[in-house]
């Protein structure tokens, strides 16, 4: 059985914004799945529909086999949601927030209190349990929302940019935590703009752009596609841009050169050509996160295909 099955999902907001243009997506039980895409791509809209915060315009969604049109209560019970924006009552204490959330799912209060202790401790918030949520730091608020989402022990956890604005140390500890609960069998779907995060955590990935899925594959397959790396070379100032046969390159100014290097060619040839022309390379670095580059390329090629499709119509 699939943890999530989405077919032909569309959403047009009042006011006319077409946020989703027919999305198909499946996530297997136990998967750690990343949904990536630029701002405004439709990630939060998709998550909103799955979790009943947004009404869909068309298409079908089922969660562990429960269709949200016909078995909404069962579908809802399977999902824990960590939304993109803080959405708890700032004046309630942490304990009230998590215990009440459990209550909405029908978890009796005594059990809810035990779970509150368990999850607030795991997320390092137990000391703050009696403070109003507004007194937490941004990173603590994110963790509070994770604890809250787990209170009814859902089979699937959906996190919409859970590590936005969280420092690297806490982000790492959140990763460890998420990996651990995924290993216990909870299916996880995550959106993020930190691509390192997707690479670290996720087994499968979908890339969404302008309301359409442009790529849906395993992380491994995706990384394999990425066979070109961009290097930035710092040169002793040159008067004329050096020539580099067989490599796409860009001279940014008199001492900076960008070169795209396919994995199979290696770097030796680049350096040989440069030293033949008497150019001194002072230092070198990777341009950006590989996945980030790939991501940009995927989105762009998706857009080109769409434009061509539109032109052919």
């Amino acid at each position, binding site marked *: 059985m699939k943890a999530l099955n989405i077919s032909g999902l569309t959403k047009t*907001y*009042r006011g006319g914004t077409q946020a989703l243009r027919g999305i198909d997506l499946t996530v297997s039980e136990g998967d750690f799945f990343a949904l990536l895409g630029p701002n405004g791509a439709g990630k939060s809209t998709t998550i*909103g529909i799955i*979790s*009943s*915060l*947004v*009404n869909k315009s068309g298409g079908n969604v089922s969660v562990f086999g429960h269709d949200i049109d016909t078995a*909404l*209560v*069962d579908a*809802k*019970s399977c*999902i824990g*949601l960590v*939304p993109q*924006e*803080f*959405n*708890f*009552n*700032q*004046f*309630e204490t942490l304990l*009230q927030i998590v215990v*009440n*959330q459990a*209550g*909405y*799912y*029908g*978890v*009796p*209060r005594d059990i809810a209190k035990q779970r509150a202790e368990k999850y607030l401790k795991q997320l390092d918030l137990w000391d703050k349990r009696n403070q109003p949520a507004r007194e937490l730091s941004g990173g603590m608020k994110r963790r509070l929302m994770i604890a*809250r989402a787990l209170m*009814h022990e859902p089979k699937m956890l959906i996190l919409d940019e859970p590590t936005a604005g969280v420092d690297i140390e806490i982000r790492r500890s959140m990763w460890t935590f998420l990996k651990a609960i995924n290993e216990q069998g909870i299916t996880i779907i995550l959106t993020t703009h930190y691509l390192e995060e997707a690479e670290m955590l996720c087994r499968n990935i979908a890339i969404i752009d302008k309301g359409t899925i442009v790529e849906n594959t395993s992380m491994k397959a995706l990384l394999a596609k990425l066979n070109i790396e961009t290097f930035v070379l710092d040169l002793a100032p040159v008067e004329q841009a050096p020539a580099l046969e067989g490599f796409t390159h860009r001279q940014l100014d008199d001492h900076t050169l960008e070169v795209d290097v396919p994995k199979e060619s290696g770097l030796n040839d680049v350096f040989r050509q440069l030293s033949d022309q008497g150019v001194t390379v002072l230092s070198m670095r990777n341009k950006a996160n590989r996945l980030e580059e790939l991501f940009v390329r995927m989105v762009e090629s998706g857009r080109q295909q769409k434009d061509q499709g539109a032109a052919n119509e």
Partner: protein
Amino acid sequence: MSNRNFVALRTIWIKECTRFLRIWVQTLVPPAITMSLYFVIFGNLIGERIGQMGGFTYMEFIVPGLIMMAVITNSYANVSSSFFSAKFQRNVEELLIAPVPNWIIILGYVGGGVARAMLIGVIVTLVSLFFVDVHIHSLGIIVLTVLLTSTLFATAGLINAVFAKTFDDISMVPTFVLTPLTYLGGVFYSLSLLPEFWQWVSKANPIVYMVNGFRYGFLGVSDVNYLTSLGLLVVFNLALFAVAYQLINRGVGIRH
């Protein structure tokens, strides 16, 4: 009711009660002060000169109306501000994602408003004991009328909050509708003092029935039949509940 729904209802209700108790300076103290002022000024100072009304001292006559006024205002205010702030802070989403049926959400919020109104009703009644001896003609009618009135205005407050886009929107109705209707609803006078035409107009004001039904429970006198009062209350309650249910079901103001 399934066990899960019962737990959810209880949770919403406890959360609502915790909220108004947490901010008791804003929610419980002001009505006690306002009502004491009414008792002192209208009941004691001015009332002495007014003499009898409906066969009772003026003070005795207005006490039930003033309690009712506090109940109406506070049922409405509690739900409208709590639900609106849940929309505003987005914590209403905690309920929307959970498997809580919409009628449970409505009952939970309304229950919270009723709890605050009942607590205030008791406080105001206790305050009134400093000024008058409270008669009780029929406790059953008192309790039934006050409960139905409270659920009615709590539901109305919820409907207001569903449509409200700013905090101003939830103070409009109390200022421009509720307060005038209450003042003209026979809290301070018996309708029989009015010219016939205005008596007739007053009977289109639903609050007249609530105040009079309630007063009947205390004093055994009323400008209208108490059964009419109870009947109307039931009808209004059902109608407003249906409206609230439709609105929440369609996700008006809470779901995009």
